[in-house]
């Protein structure tokens, strides 16, 4: 490395080389470098993602034929609870912010690190601790069987080890709050000279909105979960109806967090979409301020719509009406984003690279998710499809087809920057095609079955659903095949991929100006920002 003939591409050393006193794994798990922490998160998240996928596959396998041949009802309850808890709290909520956000937020604003590097490391350790506590709950008094929502009074009365699982999620909440707090402070205090708020990349804006949701919503979940523990351990009467409590209040408190949490899951992917579309259209983003502000608007309105999870849960008609109306309002800022993305592509010179294709898949899947959301947001139709496969299908189209597909797409976008190597693009495209087919085969039948009345969370079904169930099961196998190909290709790319330059895609934001992989302090010299983030001098505008 101490070579005089270093090209500008590989000037100096990279964050991947150990320069400190620590060696081996200790140099990673005790590192306060935001890039290393991002990668720690990435490895942990995908480990738990794999576990969640395996649980999901098993649930689908159970549906190969009616009658519950593989698992009994109790085991099936445990399966969907664990699948939900792991996927939601250990994968999609930390999701893009903890991994790619950690890695790229400081670089995109021209900073050397986040505002509180040690808190950042602590948040990863809390994540690991929370995950271990959740796993401990599996070995005590039987697997938790409440569903990921931990609804009372069942969660208070069941003999399974809900206390441990809930405590694990409580710890994960701390991790999430610390990440949010760190990002807000970083964005306010660490921007490079010249980078005003309206010169920040849109990914940073999305992370900023998300960070506020994390800080403001998560404490409400924390207290709600704490109350379950207090009720179970000290038999205090708060939600238990036999002690005068009101379970509907639990649902209110739970969804006051868990609906905004959906925006924790989807806002960062939307930010990544803005980056990817702009880069591969080779054109300035259309409606920069509108996209930035729509992130804040989604975060804000997202706060006021929690009641749509409780339309049949015993809330008043006025409340139902108001929540339904507010729910439709969220479509406005979401629409603003989509129209601006499309307008960005208009007259751009579009380069169909893998990340851009992921965005295309996202727009298709997210549209189906959004349109089925309208069915659930309208009171009359919601009563018909509530608590059926329709909800499951809708949710997976939004979170998996929307959020997680973009997580994959963003990995394809930024991996060359993180490791200085490129994966095999042809394989990446094939993997996406297989994922796309498998995904639709898996979840579209759920929409149909739900509409025809197949309830969710049942370990068996009536013979009339057999054909659709089987298509869905086969879809799950194809999806997993796609996942394996995609991840293998990415991992191979990290270690053995072809070396690429600093800016393989022609991106204009700050991360593309530093070397790949970036040096430990991100930049050889702190940049001075003079242009808006998507400045293309060669394009007409």
């Amino acid at each position, binding site marked *: 490395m101490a070579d005089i003939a270093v090209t500008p591409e590989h000037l100096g050393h990279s964050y991947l080389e150990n320069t400190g006193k620590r060696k081996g794994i200790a140099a990673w798990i005790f590192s306060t470098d935001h890039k290393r922490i991002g990668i720690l998160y990435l490895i942990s998240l995908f480990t738990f993602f794999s576990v969640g996928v395996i649980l999901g596959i098993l649930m689908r396998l159970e549906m190969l034929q009616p009658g519950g041949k593989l698992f009994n009802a109790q085991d099936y309850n445990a399966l969907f609870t664990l699948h939900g808890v792991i996927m939601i709290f250990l994968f999609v909520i930390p999701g893009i912010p903890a991994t790619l956000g950690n890695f790229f937020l400081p670089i995109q604003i021209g900073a050397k690190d986040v*505002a509180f590097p040690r808190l950042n490391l602590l948040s990863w350790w809390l994540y690991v601790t929370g995950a271990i506590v959740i796993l401990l709950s599996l070995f005590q008094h039987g697997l938790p069987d409440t569903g990921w929502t931990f609804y009372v009074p069942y969660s208070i009365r069941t003999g399974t080890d809900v206390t441990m699982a809930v405590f694990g999620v409580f710890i994960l909440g701390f991790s999430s709050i610390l990440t949010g*707090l760190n990002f807000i402070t970083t964005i306010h205090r660490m921007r490079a000279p010249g980078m005003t708020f309206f010169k920040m990349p849109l990914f940073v804006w999305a992370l900023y909105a998300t960070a506020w949701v994390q*800080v403001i919503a998560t*404490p409400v979940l924390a*207290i709600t979960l704490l*109350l379950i523990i207090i009720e179970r351990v000290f*038999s205090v*009467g708060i939600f238990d109806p036999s002690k*005068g409590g009101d379970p509907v209040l639990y649902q209110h408190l739970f969804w006051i967090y868990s609906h905004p949490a959906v925006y924790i899951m989807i806002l960062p992917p939307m930010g990544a979409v803005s980056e990817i579309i702009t880069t591969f259209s080779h054109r300035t983003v259309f409606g920069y301020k509108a996209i930035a502000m729509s992130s804040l608007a989604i975060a804000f309105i997202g706060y006021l719509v929690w009641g749509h999870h409780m339309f049949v849960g015993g809330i008043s008609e006025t409340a139902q009406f108001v929540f339904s109306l507010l729910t439709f309002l969220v479509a406005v800022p979401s629409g603003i984003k989509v129209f601006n993305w499309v307008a960005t592509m208009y007259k751009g010179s579009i380069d169909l690279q893998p990340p851009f294709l992921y965005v295309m898949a996202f727009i298709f899947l997210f549209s189906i998710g959004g349109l089925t959301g309208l069915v659930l947001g309208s009171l009359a139709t919601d009563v018909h499809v509530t608590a059926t496969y329709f909800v499951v299908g809708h949710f997976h189209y939004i979170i998996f087809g929307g959020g997680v597909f973009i997580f994959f797409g963003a990995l394809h976008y930024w991996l060359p920057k993180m490791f200085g190597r490129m994966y095999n693009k042809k394989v990446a495209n094939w993997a996406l095609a297989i994922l796309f087919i498998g995904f639709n085969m898996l979840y579209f039948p759920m929409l149909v079955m739900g509409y025809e009345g197949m309830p969710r969370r049942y370990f068996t079904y009536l013979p009339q659903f057999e054909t659709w169930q089987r298509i869905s099961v086969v879809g799950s196998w194809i999806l997993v095949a796609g996942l394996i190909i995609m991840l293998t290709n990415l991992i191979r790319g990290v270690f053995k991929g072809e070396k690429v330059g600093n800016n393989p895609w022609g991106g204009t934001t700050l991360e593309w100006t530093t070397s790949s992989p970036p040096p430990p302090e991100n930049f050889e010299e*702190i940049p001075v920002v003079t242009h808006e983030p998507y400045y293309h001098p060669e394009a007409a505008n």
Partner: protein
Amino acid sequence: MSQIVEPASSDVIHGHEAHVHKDNQGAKIGMWLFLLTELLLFAGLFLLYSAYRYFHSDAFHRAGLDMHTLFGTLNTIVLLTSSLTMALSIAAIQRGKKWLSITFLSSTILLGLSFLTVKYFEWSSEIAKGIYPGSAKLLDRSNGEILFFGLYYTMTGLHGLHVIAGMIVLIFMLVFIVRDKITKDDYIKLENAGLYWHLVDIIWIFLFPLFYLIN
């Protein structure tokens, strides 16, 4: 290795940005955000309190008669005084009076301890009367009264935990002042710890009327 390839330009960076990680305003922002999360944590409980009080106003009134207003008032005075000594401790360090600051900070910690002692006697007397979560005597009473005492133990208990956490933080601050880690020129840690202590105080200011005065 890093020394070998580090280009000359990086010296320039280090030069004009010495002590780059010391950002007092950033630390303040972080602390206020943390306080916001603490407030929201309690907000969930205040929400439950208002909902249940609305549904069971008579029972809440009756249950309130069993509370010891004297203990509550005493603790309010204790905590308010501790906030004063906390503020004085910061004022003292700003003026470079190390030992005065230590005296005030120690009094704050002692007042926190007194608060917990009073709380101990208060809870003991309630428990002696047979009013505690899950007790047969409590479960005989009306739903609203069970909820009132459920919330009473939960909210004052959680607040008590915050007092303990605050005291632990203050003990660390005390050590920092003694070892000159917190000084006239660098007292942001003490300021942030003080903010936390005031938050604990403010939450009590709301708990006090809700449980001890409205009856």
